[in-house]
């Protein structure tokens, strides 16, 4: 009956989930100077072995006593100045370990996923998302580019206890828009990797975008689905990338199954063939301006979609926006920004900018309904067994749609933009729906280039909990 949640600047709150009464609070002491662009946000905590785990802005992991909030252990994953990256994603628990990714990909660094023993904090294993010299895949990086090639592991992975595999989406290669100094496919950036949960060893990988020059992180959630494909039951993994494409693979071996778009304005490729290869790449050029759709904010943003086993549909958002990108040659400096270009957002050429939430068949990508939104929808989607779909918008509305038709059934104005993830839970047999409200973030900032008025949207940091009488 206790809810644990984090707020920006690495604070953790334990709250009575029935009454909202605070039980304990913890404030991590970050150093005065962070100076890493992936700050000061946090996406959540994990709970296991009587502990609450959180990654921090100075690239550490802390374990707190679940009952009191007392810090039990802390480990610095890597020096903040060296990495130029930190941890904003919620940790994942798999067996005895707590597993964390790192931010990055827009800095000169080499990404990784690290597992720590939940009890002692000792490092159990590390998987480097870029293979080192002598390792398979290192040949997909020209010269020394592997050292500073990004491959951040921003979000929370997924764990399949039956297959004993941990799945994680890996972000873009660095520099974002300039690829001439990192010739090759750049493994395992823009890939989903499957790791042995005990050792962190690679079991398989599936790269969605070889040699990305658009900053299309493949770092979003890995949705594990058991569904028939052409009449045959398959264990699947669905992942939407920042370029606006959904990839479905077999999660036992990484075999490609399907790909389909979540945004209408996509021009960086013309499509994906039957084997999962990209067609018609439209790459930014050095010193020239190229219009690329979607914008770097993504054909979908970072917060997760939802699958409903009741309808059998996957619910996710999409965004219609573009940008003018100019690539530029850039040399890496360890731990420092490494973009290789500049961009300016613009509305799509053939229509209005905006967002939408859609219901899809998870394999064919067939769209069953669309809910249109004036602004991009940046909050996560929640599907309930009562056939309701919950999400919120930048104007502060938290609302429920009919899972079968998309019709709006209920709306509540929370007073500040919705940017987090709603959850459903029950205490003593009563169901609750909780959502955080509070505007902000990098994407909220760049939205001002298309919608200047969002700058005036109210900030906030409030948790709302709803129940039926």
């Amino acid at each position, binding site marked *: 009956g206790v809810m644990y949640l984090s707020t920006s600047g690495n604070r953790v709150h334990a709250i009575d989930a029935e009454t909202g009464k605070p039980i304990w609070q913890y404030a991590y002491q970050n150093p005065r100077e*962070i100076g890493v662009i992936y700050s000061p946000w946090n996406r959540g905590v994990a709970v296991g072995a009587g502990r609450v785990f959180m990654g921090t*802005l100075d690239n550490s992991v802390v374990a707190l006593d679940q009952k009191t909030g007392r810090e039990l252990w802390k480990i610095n994953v890597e020096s903040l100045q*060296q990495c130029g990256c930190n941890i904003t994603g919620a940790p994942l628990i798999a067996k005895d370990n707590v597993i964390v990714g790192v931010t990055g990909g827009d800095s000169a660094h080499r990404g990784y996923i690290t597992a720590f023993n939940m009890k002692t904090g000792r490092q159990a294993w590390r998987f480097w998302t870029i293979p080192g010299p002598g390792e398979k895949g290192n040949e997909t990086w020209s010269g020394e580019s592997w050292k500073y090639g990004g491959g951040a592991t921003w979000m929370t992975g997924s764990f399949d206890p039956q297959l004993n595999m941990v799945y994680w989406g890996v972000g873009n290669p660095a520099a*974002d828009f300039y690829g001439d100094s990192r010739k090759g496919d750049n493994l395992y950036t823009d890939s989903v990797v499957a790791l042995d949960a005990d050792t962190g060893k690679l079991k398989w990988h599936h790269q969605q975008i070889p040699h990305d020059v658009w900053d299309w992180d493949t770092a979003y959630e890995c949705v594990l689905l058991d569904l028939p494909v052409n009449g045959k039951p398959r264990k699947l993994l669905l992942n939407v990338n920042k370029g606006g494409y959904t990839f479905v693979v077999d999660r036992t071996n990484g075999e490609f199954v399907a790909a389909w778009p979540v945004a209408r304005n996509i021009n960086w490729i013309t499509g994906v063939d039957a084997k999962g290869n990209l067609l018609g790449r439209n790459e930014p050029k050095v010193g020239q301006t190229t219009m690329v759709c979607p914008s770097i904010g993504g054909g979908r943003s970072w917060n997760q979609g939802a699958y409903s086993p009741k309808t059998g549909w996957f619910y996710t958002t999409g965004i219609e926006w573009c940008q003018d990108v100019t690539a530029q040659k850039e040399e890496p400096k360890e731990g420092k920004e490494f973009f290789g270009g*500049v961009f300016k957002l613009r509305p799509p050429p053939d229509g209005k900018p905006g967002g939408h939430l859609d219901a899809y068949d998870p394999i064919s990508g067939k769209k069953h309904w669309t809910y249109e939104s004036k602004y991009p929808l940046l909050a996560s989607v929640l599907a309930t067994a009562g056939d309701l779909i919950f999400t919120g918008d930048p104007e502060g509305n938290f609302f429920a749609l009919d899972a079968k038709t998309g019709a709006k059934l209920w709306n509540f104005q929370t007073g500040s933009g919705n940017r987090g993830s709603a959850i459903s839970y029950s205490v003593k047999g009563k169901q609750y729906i909780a959502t955080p409200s509070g505007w902000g973030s990098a994407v909220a*900032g760049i*939205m001002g280039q298309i919608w200047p008025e969002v*700058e005036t949207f109210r900030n906030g940091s409030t948790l709302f909990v709803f129940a039926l009488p």
Partner: protein
Amino acid sequence: MIWLALFFAAADPAVVARGDKLFAQNCSIGYCHGAGGAAARGPRLRGRAFDASYLRSAIHDGIPKSAMPAFKERMKQDEIAAVVAYVQSLAGATGEAPATVPVSQPAPLTGSTPVKPGYALFFENNRCGSCHSLGGRGTAVGPDVGKVAKADLAAAINATRSRLVRTVKLKDGETFPALMGKEDGAYVEAFDLTAPPPVKRTLERAEIVSVTPASTWSHQAAAGAYTPEQMADLIAYIRFAAAGE
């Protein structure tokens, strides 16, 4: 005197133009500020009046606990003054920010990482840097290697024992080598050195059976792991970094 100089500098179109270029090379890059001070990940700077001393402090020292880094080691004082002058010149800017324009590669920043062969040996793959800080990098758990005399460094790196490391035994039977940290009432901090990186564990005094001098712990990654050439590189780097970058 400095502020007076800044004040006059702000009115000089040549300084503003220089600040414009520096802003494009260092500030309106990728995911930081927008072109011409447009809204981006960083806040909008166009059409807003900022105090010069605030701007100088934000650029020089960064903004505490935020994404805004300190530029004091990346830009010279007169460069910072030029950027301040440029941002102040945007106070009256109205309408759209200029379109994204190609800018030359960002100017080489002063104080970037010196590339020395010993650097990788010190910092990469959970080696020295996971336990020792040097030149503002790494994690300061073990002794300050910058203070070790040059003649003693080789012996310190290869040391198989340490006078500082203890063996901690807990009630549940667990034992581990540790550097002891702060003690606070009922709690004791111990940096668990079982494997790098060290884990700072805050133990209840009541769960500790004993803390005794360690007999077996050693620099696992270091002892005997280096060729004479690597050892020379490592020591040269430590001496170089300790002298100040």
